[in-house]
Structures are given as structure tokens and as C-alpha cells.
């Protein structure tokens, strides 16, 4: 028997990751180093926020909520402490290298997870995963190209990428923690996060090495991933800004 509430909690965490990463990426709009990348990052942001909406809608169906209203309520009226995104995606955007590398690390994990989800025994989940997966092919193609270009580019671009990797790595390892609700789901509904992590680690380790980047030894290990219930101080400011207009008049229609 499928525990609908457990699966909804899982999907809301996925949606929160996509939403918050999309929000951080949107902060580059008008500020990216070149026009092409300004356009690209605005699109990445829009795609991720679009994907978060699909996951929130699916969670609404499982909870018997109104799918037309549920996503906005989750995004604009939920207190910061109830978000279940990774700290990885809420960290301030940093420099261009930091944002690009974060997107790459997230995209690789997402490709592995979407491959698993598109085989889910829960048909509605498999369908949405298949939809998102093909779009994510474009993200990964883009971020892989940039990680290589910056990693092997100039002394400065390599130095900045290495600094970004050093800063991101302890947070990126949080990707391997089980998602909320995951433990309560029967086999075949969602892929095992620990197994996805192993596949992710093998892929990014090889790719980063080829891009001239070094994973520093002694990073915190998977045994103590950062809980998705814990957020950084920067997160409160992000949520306050994101929700400020909606909270002026929660019943307003657009």
C-alpha cells in the first residue's frame, strides 16, 4: 500500500530543491558575464522553477489538494523552516564559477534520479520524470561544457573553479542523504538515494579530474549529511524576499 503522504513529502523536497536553485539562478538575470549566458541562466532558472511546479502539483494530487493553488501556497506562504531543500541550492550565488559548478553538480545528480524515477511503479510520477528528464539533457550539456572550459581555461578561471569546488563539496555531499518520506515507500516507487549518490560520485569525480579540478581529501562524509530541515542564515533572507509581495495580500488573484 502506497503511503501517499510519504510520497508527497518526498516530492515537495524535490520541488523545493528545484525552486530554490531556480531562484538563485534567476539572480544572475541582468548580471551574467556575457549576454549569451545571461539568457542561458535565465532559461535554466525558468526551467527549474517550471519543474518545481510539476512536482508540487503531483504532491497536491497525492494529498487531495487543489493543484491549481497548492504550488503558490507552498512557495509563497510556507514558513522558511518548513522548506526541505538542500543547503547546497540555497547558498548565495557566489561568482560565476560557483553558480556554474553548483548547477553542474546538481544536474548530474538529477539525471541519475530522473532516470530512476522515470521507471517508477507510480505511473504519474514516471510520466513527469520522463518529461523533465529530456529537458535536463540541455542543462547538463551546457554546464558540462562550461565546467570543462573554465577548469581548463586560464589560470584565473581554474583558480576560481577550484575555489568553488572546495566551497561546494561539503554541501554537494548532502545530495546522498535520504529524502523525506523515502524510507516509508515500497521498493520501485523511488530510487535509493544512497545508490544514486554512488553513481553521481563516480561520474563527477572522473569528470572534474578531466577538467583539471581536484576534490580535496578530508571532506565531511556521507555518514553525517546536513539535514534538509536545517537552513543557513542566508536562506531566511531569500524566503523573505521571495514571499514579500505575496504576503502583502495572500488572497490576491493575478
Amino acid at each position, binding site marked *: 500500500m502506497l503511503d501517499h503522504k510519504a510520497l508527497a513529502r518526498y516530492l515537495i523536497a524535490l520541488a523545493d530543491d528545484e525552486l530554490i536553485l531556480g531562484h538563485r539562478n534567476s539572480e544572475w538575470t541582468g548580471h551574467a558575464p556575457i549576454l549569451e549566458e545571461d*539568457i*542561458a541562466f*535565465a532559461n*535554466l532558472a525558468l526551467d527549474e522553477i517550471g519543474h518545481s*511546479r*510539476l512536482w508540487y502539483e503531483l504532491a497536491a494530487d497525492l494529498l487531495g489538494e487543489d493543484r491549481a493553488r497548492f504550488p503558490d501556497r507552498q512557495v509563497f506562504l510556507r514558513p522558511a523552516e518548513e522548506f526541505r531543500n538542500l543547503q547546497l541550492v540555497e547558498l548565495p550565488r557566489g561568482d560565476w564559477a560557483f553558480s556554474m559548478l553548483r548547477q553542474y553538480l546538481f544536474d548530474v545528480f538529477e539525471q541519475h534520479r530522473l532516470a530512476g524515477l522515470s521507471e517508477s511503479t507510480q505511473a504519474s510520477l514516471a510520466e513527469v520524470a*520522463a518529461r523533465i528528464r529530456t529537458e535536463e539533457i540541455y542543462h547538463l550539456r551546457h554546464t558540462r561544457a562550461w565546467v570543462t572550459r573554465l577548469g581548463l581555461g586560464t589560470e584565473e578561471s581554474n583558480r576560481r573553479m577550484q575555489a568553488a569546488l572546495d566551497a561546494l563539496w561539503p554541501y554537494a555531499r548532502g545530495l546522498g542523504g535520504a529524502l523525506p518520506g523515502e524510507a516509508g515507500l515500497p521498493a520501485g516507487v523511488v530510487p535509493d538515494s544512497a545508490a544514486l549518490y554512488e553513481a553521481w560520485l563516480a561520474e563527477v569525480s572522473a569528470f572534474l579530474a578531466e577538467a583539471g579540478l581536484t576534490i580535496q581529501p578530508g571532506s565531511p562524509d556521507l555518514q553525517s549529511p546536513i539535514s534538509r530541515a536545517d537552513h543557513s542564515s542566508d536562506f531566511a533572507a531569500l524566503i523573505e524576499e521571495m514571499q514579500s509581495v505575496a504576503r502583502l495580500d495572500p488572497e490576491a488573484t493575478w
Partner: protein
Amino acid sequence: MVMSKPAATRPSEAEIWEALSQVPDPEMPFVNLVEMGIVRELGWQGGRLQVTITPTFAACPAYEVMQAEILAALAALGLAGAEVLVSHNPPWTSEWISAEARQKLKDAGLAPPPRHQGDLLGVLMDPVPCPRCGSEQTSLRNSFGTTPCRMIYTCNDCKEPFEMFKPL
């Protein structure tokens, strides 16, 4: 109580498809929602028409406008209580864009998405012919464009930039 027309006076399915073929894509008004493969299926539920659509890109900002325009076209046919259902099963693919719509995209200066039969990464390695001069000497400038469904190229022969509808 739901008011609906008796079956005998309903517009025929052909008439409904014809009306939906007049609904332009909000972002590309030179093609319509039927030939883009977005309108998928018609069905009746207790005298009420249900139109199933499959949105293209998940973040397509035109998606709500599409639903409103479909309902308006149906209301003009006398089908006021119609409903738009959204399905991602199977997910939309650019393979569903008709040959006629591909030609319209090209005529509007937008390179149509190449046929990929499921191999997206493979087809992205192939040259993209310039929709203006037909040259295959073109270069990718950006995998992302002015909307989620476009990417930007330049033609090395006629020197013009152009957009391609992303294969999906």
C-alpha cells in the same frame, strides 16, 4: 445542474478539430496548437467536452494562455462548459510537430527541430541548415534562446543569426 446540448445538436468532432486548428500558438502565432501536437484528444464526459492537451516545455509561460484560448474557441462553437485536461502521458515531443507546421516554422525564419527518434544528443551533433539561405555552414551560439523552446545559431554564409526550435 449541468446544462449541455443534446448529442444531436453538438458540433461534430471534425468541426471541433477545425475550430481548434484556428487557435494560434501564443508565442508563434504562425502555427496552431493542433499541428504543434499540443491538442491530443477529444472526449465527452456527461455531455461535457474534454480536450486533452500536452504542454511542450514544463516551464512554458504560454501554457495558461493556451488553455484560455482553447476554451474561448470552444465557447464560440457553443461548447461553453468544456474542460481542458493536461496530460504528460506520454510527454510531448517535437516529433509530433506536423510536416506542414515545420514548413511554417521555417518560413518564419525559425529552423524546425530535427527529427531525432529518441536520440537527442546524437541529433544535436548534426548541422542545422540556415532557414534563410539553406547553408549547412552554421554555428551554435547558445543552447538557450528567447523562450524555453529555442536555441540560437548563426549562419556563416549569409551571416544572419537565427533560432532553432529545440528538439525534445
